[in-house]
């Protein structure tokens, strides 16, 4: 179809935002570059001033620009890292313009995941900010002919102590930029922080309330084509036939081609339909009549997976942690008449990430072998990977391949796999035209990779001497061993959030790998999301058997861990834990350490007119030193909802090798009317090193909920998901 395509000039008129967006702190370069020039304009090209290091540029009139170098997916890192730099640089956030970087090795590693950004960059970015401040101070000291120790910095101005002499950064930047950055700059004391630890408004949110924030799916460039991909419903089948001519008979369809998507070493074939509009591409796709050979996978079902995992749970498995002698604690230790042993089995299903922005990518491989990429990715440094496929040497990869970092409409781990970029690159490379690939929601839900399923055999032992033993046996596939053998070792990721700090006499944690063909991938809090539910639910079962309040039981058994104790005490106080509830009310608690932070939740349930609701969740977070407390609270609120969705809504189930849930009608999300109206998040104040924030709030929510269900109804929920209205 002859669409009324917008040219680049009209994009800017229609949206009227090129300048305005820079002013509020993010680039307008979702718009690509003019094809009349080979120079691709990137955010870095538009910054005014003198660059002191790759992150900090200061103009002679004093404007400070700090690069946001890692992708923003909702966690607030767009502001978080620049705030850390600004703190040590000695400027206020009002003086700073934050600009989204493009992908480049000059920024170091730009990938995000594992709740790692602040944890790993807190010190390096403080050092960078402080070193930048020190060269500005040196420049001033030199000008005044005094020692740097006679200078002090306030809000972007260097002052000579004991005088009225002052030099703003803008006057110093030219000479400071010539100085070498000191390797061991002096850092501020925590007590002197003006930015870190204070709630600051996120500058990226302005564009998120007026529609101007640029996500990958919003990339626009002249002559853009649209692609959708038909895929094998059983994930790894092979294509036997399809009708390209029928698809091409749809007006606007330009090309039909096979593309490959690599998922942990497995090559999945899809059939791309490329058209002038996305609608034409989707209409063409409907006419493909693709046939697949998927015999090999037709036996895979959730039922068979569950049976296989339960079987494996009976095996001894690999040792992860052993304290005391758990096997002996079950009865071989002499007088055994008073020994009680109880075993429970827990199971969690595969689930999907379901980012609100479906997987997509935009790539323009040009005739001259230069490339422009819009990478909605948690790992956007794709230059070398693409360069190799174009015969470009590594040392020219960054010059010839430019990568924009759009805002991400959610990530949750899913966007650390660049499969949509891989597919889009192939299409554009073949056509040498700009192509935007958009996965449908159905593709996004059914194709994975998914959060792993897992099965847990939990056993407790105790006797009249108060000797207590606990065994946690984990059965699950592992992420890192999908395309290689595990060689008898416990993969590093599978034991997250299992608390071996509990002061039991005998503890045993073991693992059996369950290998199958369903691809799995990092999903918010990863194994924390599957291990904490059985673990913290079973701690509750133990407290019940021993007739102790579950919160007090945890306090008693974690007494050698002061940070856990403080979190529990704070939760006890803030949730009024010891207040007696009404007959139709229930409460549950769970505490989990993951990704370097400790989070405890108390969930409150209420039954009214036969309907169960969750009026309140109270949380306490100990993440050490934090940058923006409001973002720690926001991430914890988000973790609660994400975790409740996995606990209460739908699983991804498999039948004949294919995922059965495809869109939000069958794979339902928790909605406003089901969310707790009262969520209170309290932060611990201490001087511990920064812990993770994006994930640690998730693991304790499902067990706290299930424990509250038990308190309300006497029913122990051991299989997720469950329906709160059917308890």
């Amino acid at each position, binding site marked *: *179809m*002859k*669409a*009324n395509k*917008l040219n680049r000039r009209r*994009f800017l008129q*229609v*949206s009227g935002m090129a300048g305005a967006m820079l002013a509020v702190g993010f680039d307008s370069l979702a718009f690509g570059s003019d094809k009349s020039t080979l120079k691709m304009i990137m955010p870095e090209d538009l910054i005014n001033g003198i660059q002191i290091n790759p992150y900090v540029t200061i103009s002679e009139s004093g404007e400070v620009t700090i690069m946001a170098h890692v992708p923003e*997916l*909702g*966690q*607030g890192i767009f502001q978080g890292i620049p705030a850390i730099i600004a703190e040590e640089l000695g400027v206020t956030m009002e003086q700073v313009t934050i600009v989204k970087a493009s992908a480049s090795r000059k920024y170091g590693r730009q990938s995000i995941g594992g709740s790692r950004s602040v944890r790993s960059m807190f010190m390096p970015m403080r050092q960078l900010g402080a070193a930048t401040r020190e060269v500005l101070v040196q420049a001033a000291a030199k000008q005044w002919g005094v020692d740097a120790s006679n200078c002090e910095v306030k809000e972007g101005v260097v002052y000579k102590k004991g005088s009225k002499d002052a030099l703003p950064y803008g006057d110093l930047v030219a000479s400071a930029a010539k100085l070498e950055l000191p390797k061991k700059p002096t850092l501020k004391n925590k007590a002197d922080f003006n930015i870190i630890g204070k709630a600051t*408004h*996120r500058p*990226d*949110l*302005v*564009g998120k*309330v*007026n*529609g101007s924030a640029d*996500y990958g*799916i*919003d990339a*626009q460039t002249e002559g853009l084509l*649209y692609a959708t991909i038909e895929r094998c419903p059983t994930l790894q089948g092979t294509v036997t036939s399809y009708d390209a001519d029928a698809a091409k008979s749809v*007006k606007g369809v330009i090309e039909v081609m096979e593309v490959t998507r690599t998922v942990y070493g497995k090559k999945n074939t899809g059939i791309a339909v490329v058209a002038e*509009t*996305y*609608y*034409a591409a989707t209409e063409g796709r409907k006419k493909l009549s693709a046939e697949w050979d998927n015999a090999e996978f037709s036996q895979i079902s959730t039922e068979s997976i569950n049976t296989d995992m339960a079987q494996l749970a009976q095996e001894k498995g690999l040792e992860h942690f052993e304290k005391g002698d758990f096997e002996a604690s079950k009865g071989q230790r002499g007088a055994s008449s008073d020994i009680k042993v109880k075993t429970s089995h827990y199971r969690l299903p595969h689930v999907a990430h*379901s*980012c*609100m*922005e*479906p997987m997509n990518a935009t790539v323009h491989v040009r005739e001259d072998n230069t490339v422009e990429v819009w990478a909605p990715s948690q790992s956007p440094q794709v230059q070398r990977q693409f360069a190799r496929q174009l015969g470009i040497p590594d040392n020219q990869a960054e010059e010839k391949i430019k990568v924009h970092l759009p*805002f*991400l*409409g959610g990530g949750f781990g899913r966007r650390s796999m660049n499969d949509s970029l891989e597919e889009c690159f192939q299409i554009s490379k073949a056509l040498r035209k700009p192509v935007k690939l*958009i996965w*449908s*929601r159905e593709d996004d839900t059914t194709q994975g990779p998914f959060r792993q399923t897992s099965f847990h055999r939990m056993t407790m032992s105790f006797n009249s001497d108060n000797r207590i033993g606990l065994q946690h046996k984990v059965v699950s596939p592992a992420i890192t061993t999908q395309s290689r053998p595990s060689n008898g070792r416990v993969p590093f990721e599978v034991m997250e959030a299992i608390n071996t700090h509990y002061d039991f006499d005998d503890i045993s944690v073991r693992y059996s790998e369950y290998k199958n063909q369903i691809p799995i991938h990092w999903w918010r809090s990863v194994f924390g999301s599957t291990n904490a539910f059985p673990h913290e639910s079973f701690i509750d079962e133990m407290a019940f058997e021993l007739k102790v309040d579950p919160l007090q039981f945890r306090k008693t058994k974690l007494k050698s861990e002061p940070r856990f104790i403080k979190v529990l005490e704070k939760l006890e106080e803030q949730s009024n834990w010891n207040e007696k509830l009404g007959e139709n009310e229930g409460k549950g608690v769970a505490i989990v350490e993951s990704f370097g932070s400790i989070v405890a939740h108390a969930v409150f349930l209420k039954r009214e007119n036969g309907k169960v609701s969750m009026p309140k969740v109270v949380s306490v977070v100990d993440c050490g030193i934090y940058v923006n407390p409001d973002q720690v609270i*926001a991430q914890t*609120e*988000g*973790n*609660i*909802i*994400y975790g409740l969705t996995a606990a209460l809504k739908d699983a991804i189930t498999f039948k004949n090798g294919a995922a059965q849930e495809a*869109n*939000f009608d069958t794979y339902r*999300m*928790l*909605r*406003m*009317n089901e*969310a*707790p*109206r009262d*969520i209170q998040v309290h932060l611990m104040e201490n001087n511990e090193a920064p812990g993770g924030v994006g994930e640690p709030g998730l693991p304790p929510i499902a067990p706290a909920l299930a424990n509250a269900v038990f308190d309300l109804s006497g029913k122990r929920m051991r299989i997720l998901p469950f329906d709160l209205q059917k308890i």
Partner: protein
Amino acid sequence: MASYKLNINSKEYTIEAEPQTPLLWAIRDEVGLTGTKYGCGIAQCGACTVHLNGNPVRSCSLPVSAIVGQSITTIEGLSEDNSHPVQKAWLDVQAPQCGYCQSGQIMSASALLEKNPSPSDEDIDQAMSGNVCRCGTYHRIRKAIHLASKEISNESK
């Protein structure tokens, strides 16, 4: 293929499209207003919510041929300068995280407040449960709607 005149944010746009093209893709790719988002394509998530004659509708499920002559407002048309009480309240409570669903959330909330300037929590549940937020900002959205409601009633005093 036909030519359609669309009235979006009080401006007239002429586009060429197949009659069944969802309004969503016309707004995004033909007109170039990308604040309205694709989330599910089957009117289940609300990311594509726009106002049609003041009512919130899911633009992913409305064919472009069905809305000719009607007045469409998208997130870009809510205000010139982020000054709509709902936008202000959203920023005040720092509601968005990834932000992808928020255009739709804001369009649903502004339509609610237009009809019901003082909604109860139950009214909010009813008006907003068609909009999914995967980051889990419901709690702040509720707060923001109450806040915007207060500002609207102060304005009208």
